């Protein structure tokens, strides 16, 4: 007993995997000592303000800088004409298109960047920006993607009108970007022909924005003497950013340093490379002094990193018991004015083909058509992997639609179609191999926890009572996520594979520094990675320092997005640590004069099997590794670097249930209860996981219940400030109940999967399903998001539920 107590104590000292270690990064944040982009101040720094187009589509007839240049404090005004000589008025996009850095002949979306005014301070820059006179000729705008491909639709992109192909296959119309297909159309069509039951629904994923609390911005500092460019920037992908910057500017990549610093939330918004960054960089190169550009909130919502805008059609074929026989999903994707959608080269529609979700579905086919409109470009994955929210929303909604059609309970229809535990690894009709899961167990645990039968009984009673002032809705979502991009054989961006890396250096006294290619934005990497190393090396997490985001220090990696940090970099960390452990073992064997095979690992030490008094602690080995007392021919030091190319993506899953009550007379929906069970495989820090789930659910709540970027018919933004754009406060946000099961990932060294996006991907359909479930007894099969009081009331009104 005493022995096990001693083991426990040693283990606790490490604060390794599985413990809720408090976050290392908190220390500076709770003191207001974080270093975010706008906190950076450099001598002689200029401030850049961007002049933006009030029109969604217009020809630029002229730009008059004179008044602006006369404004006190204004140093220069940059326009496309100034960038043209250095060929930086346009930049290539990851989608195989080009994007205007500053608009030259035409503006293609409202608030598009037209000029940057450089001034000695912020106020002067804004004064100058107000004085730049741009002469526009307004042109008809396309706002509705359905109208983009009409014969007589105005041609938006005159610059590429002759381009037959934007690297993703032939274009069929000047406003057409690509058509992408997956699966087997013939088989799917056949399944629908012979089906006992088919359902079809048009389902919109409206244009939204991740809206992190910190907007985008940068400080570009070019040293004329050394030709060395340092860019402090709000980016989730510092290394890829550096590579792209080298491609754009021609500056040797070795002379570019990109620093992420502290990031005030990303959620996908900080993946793309925006014109503001490029102009600020050019401005610093031109002026030879540092240039800061910080986006306003209105600019942020209007121009950088929108998400979704997928206009989908879902179709399922099934037998009369609701067992699915075929799936046909299509989407019309509104990519805005340029195809700078964030995607891997071989995946123009991202991972949309994960749309079979948690279900064993034969005969599957999906297709995405992408078009240009007069809206902002730069479609990002808003707290999800590329297009996964769109895919999972579609399948989770369609499961409910099917359940209603065949008259089967919405939990039961899922049970009938789940991939069974014994079927894993399971390869879907679209070719994804789901690594591991136990969907039935997860759902059953949730239904039991909330007394599902009881809730359905209560709902039935309410429905029977015409006097009830509220409608009760129960939403279920049993999603499967696809995260951890990704295997280089499937995933690259501009030719760079999406592997990731970790470099670990162990110091003589047992201190450790680890550097990674990822970029934390609040996920607590410094804590999580330290816990992995603590467990792997038997050294206390408190002595382990983690560094990311400075490309001069960290090894190359693809950054943090798509919940890839733990699946890819977490794995790299484990692999690097194990290299060190192997070397330490050799040293231990040498010191203890036994064969490596005679040693066994115990928490923080190697001990001789059967002779527990004979051991070497890792701490001891750290020192010895820096001496001459090493096995013959062994180099000093305990350092390692690992580059991890994942064999597969990981597939976290979960079962969510939402109960809400809708006020028939105002349309307000009040979430009564939300129960979220997540399975992300091995859990490294339960406290951080819960925090990520709270945040993801809250963002899902915002998307489902209120977020949308609305436009009028001329392409005018109608809701691009925090007055209209819905960010819930503590008052609107429901309380969350979390739970978990653990089904380790078989191909990940730690069995971990990644979690931050599951609550967003799985949460959105859960809210929608709950709202629509409240109306399902009245024959309602679908209502588009966002489920604002106004929109829900319109349904109540149409159904005459609000009669007094």
């Amino acid at each position, binding site marked *: 007993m005493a022995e096990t107590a001693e083991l426990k104590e040693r283990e606790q000292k490490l604060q390794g995997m599985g413990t809720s270690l*408090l*976050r290392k*990064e*908190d*220390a*500076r*944040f*709770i*003191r*207001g*000592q*974080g*270093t*975010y982009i*706008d*906190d950076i*101040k450099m001598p002689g720094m200029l401030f850049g303000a961007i002049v933006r187009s009030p029109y969604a589509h217009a020809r630029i007839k002229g730009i008059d800088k004179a008044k602006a240049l006369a404004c*006190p404090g204004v140093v220069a005004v940059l326009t496309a004409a100034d960038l043209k000589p250095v060929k930086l008025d346009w930049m290539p996009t990851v989608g195989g298109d080009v994007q205007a850095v500053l608009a030259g002949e035409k503006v293609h979306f409202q608030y598009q960047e037209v000029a940057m005014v450089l001034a000695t301070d*912020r*106020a002067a820059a804004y004064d100058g920006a107000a004085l730049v006179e741009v002469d526009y000729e307004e042109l008809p705008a396309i706002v509705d993607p359905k109208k983009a491909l009409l014969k007589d639709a105005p041609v938006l992109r005159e610059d590429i009108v002759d381009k037959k192909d934007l690297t993703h296959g032939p274009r069929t119309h000047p406003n057409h970007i690509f058509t992408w297909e997956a699966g087997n159309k013939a088989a799917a069509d056949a399944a629908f022909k012979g089906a006992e039951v088919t359902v079809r629904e048009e389902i919109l994923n409206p244009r939204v924005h991740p*809206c*992190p*609390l*910190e*907007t985008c911005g940068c400080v570009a500092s070019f040293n004329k003497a050394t030709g060395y460019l340092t860019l402090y920037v709000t980016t989730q992908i510092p290394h890829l950013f550096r590579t792209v910057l080298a491609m754009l500017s021609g500056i040797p990549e070795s002379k570019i340093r990109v620093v992420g610093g*502290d*990031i*005030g*939330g990303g*959620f996908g918004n900080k993946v793309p490379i925006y014109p503001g960054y490029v102009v600020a960089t050019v401005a610093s190169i031109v002026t030879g002094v540092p240039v800061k550009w910080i986006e*306003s*909130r*209105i600019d942020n919502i209007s121009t950088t990193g929108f998400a979704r805008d997928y206009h989908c059609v879902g179709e399922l074929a099934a037998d009369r018991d609701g067992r699915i026989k075929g799936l046909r999903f299509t989407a019309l994707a509104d990519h805005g004015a340029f195809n700078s959608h964030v995607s891997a080269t071989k995946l123009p529609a991202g991972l949309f083909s994960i749309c079979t979700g948690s279900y064993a579905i034969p005969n599957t086919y999906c297709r995405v058509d992408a078009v240009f409109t007069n809206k902002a470009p730069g479609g990002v994955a808003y707290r999800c992997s590329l297009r996964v929210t769109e895919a999972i929303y579609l399948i989770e909604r369609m499961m409910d639609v099917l359940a209603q059609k065949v008259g089967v309970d919405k939990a039961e229809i899922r049970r009938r179609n789940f991939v069974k535990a014994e079927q894993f690894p399971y390869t879907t009709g679209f070719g994804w191999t789901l690594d591991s899961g136990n969907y039935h167990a997860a759902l059953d645990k949730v239904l039991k926890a909330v007394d599902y039968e009881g809730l359905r009984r209560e709902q039935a009673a309410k429905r029977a009572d015409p006097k009830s002032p509220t409608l009760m809705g129960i939403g279920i979502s049993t999603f499967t996520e696809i995260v951890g991009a990704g295997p280089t054989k499937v995933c690259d961006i501009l030719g760079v594979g999406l592997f990731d890396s970790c470099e670990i250096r162990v110091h003589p006294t047992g201190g450790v520094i680890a550097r990674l290619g990822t970029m934390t*934005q*609040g*996920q*607590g990497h410094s804590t999580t990675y330290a816990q992995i190393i603590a467990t792997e090396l038997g050294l206390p997490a408190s002595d382990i320092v983690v560094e990311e985001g400075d490309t001069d220090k960290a090894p190359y990696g693809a950054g943090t997005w798509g919940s890839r940090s733990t699946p890819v970099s977490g794995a790299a960390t484990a692999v690097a640590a194990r290299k060190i452990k192997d070397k330490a073992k050799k040293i231990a064997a040498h010191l203890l004069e036994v064969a490596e095979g005679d040693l066994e690992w115990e928490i923080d030490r190697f001990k001789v099997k059967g002779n527990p008094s004979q051991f070497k602690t890792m701490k001891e080995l750290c020192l010895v590794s820096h001496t001459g007392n090493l096995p013959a021919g062994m180099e000093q030091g305990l350092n390692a670097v690992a580059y991890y190319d994942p064999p597969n993506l990981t597939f976290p899953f979960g079962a969510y249930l939402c109960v809400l009550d809708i006020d028939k007379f105002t349309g307000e929906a009040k979430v009564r209860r939300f129960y979220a069970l997540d399975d992300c495989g091995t859990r490294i820090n339960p*406290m*951080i996981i*819960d*925090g*990520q789930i*709270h*945040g993801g*659910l*809250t*963002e899902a709540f915002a998307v489902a219940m209120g977020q949308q970027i609305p436009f009028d018919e001329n392409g005018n933004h109608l809701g691009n*400030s*925090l*007055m209209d754009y819905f*960010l819930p*406060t*503590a*008052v609107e*946000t429901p*309380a*969350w109940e979390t739970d978990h099961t653990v089904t380790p990932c078989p191909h990940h060294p730690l069995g971990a999967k990644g979690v931050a996006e599951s609550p967003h991907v799985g949460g959105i359909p859960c809210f929608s399903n709950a709202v629509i479930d409240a109306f399902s007894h009245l024959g309602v099969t679908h209502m588009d998001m966002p489920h604002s009081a106004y929109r829900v009331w319109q349904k109540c009104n149409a159904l005459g539920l609000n009669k007094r």
Partner: protein
Amino acid sequence: MAKTHKVSFKLNGKPVEAAVEARELLIYTLRERLGHTGPHIGCETTHCGACTVDLDGMSVKSCTVLTVQCEGADMTTIEGMEQGGTLHALQQAFHEEHGLQCGYCTPGMITRAYRLLKENPNPSEQDIRKGIAGNLCRCTGYQNIVKAVQSAAKKLAAAR
């Protein structure tokens, strides 16, 4: 160069002075002239609360106060919460309850909660949610922030 006004006030207990244009907003004076970058900027329409500071016993959004209005004021920012090397109970509680993630809203959130607890030392969960409704957080879903304020309230009560 436009006319500047000399403004002096007390910032975290120390007298400070700044020469500013009438149009300068307090948040910029704090961040760019006085080196207090704890309070942040998250919007321009007075919604996000990241710029919250404590001004003469009021929680205010310093992006919607002119520095010239602050002559003679007594101001506390996140930088003034730690006393003699000891964290304020709220700072400690935000850490212990995992009440922060990216940290961007944290200074405003803690500064607001500081005033809330001065006015209502024993708040209910609803009191807290209403009390911090002027501060947006995109990461935490507020759940652990509420827990943090509750636990800080208990600690402060015990200390009294």
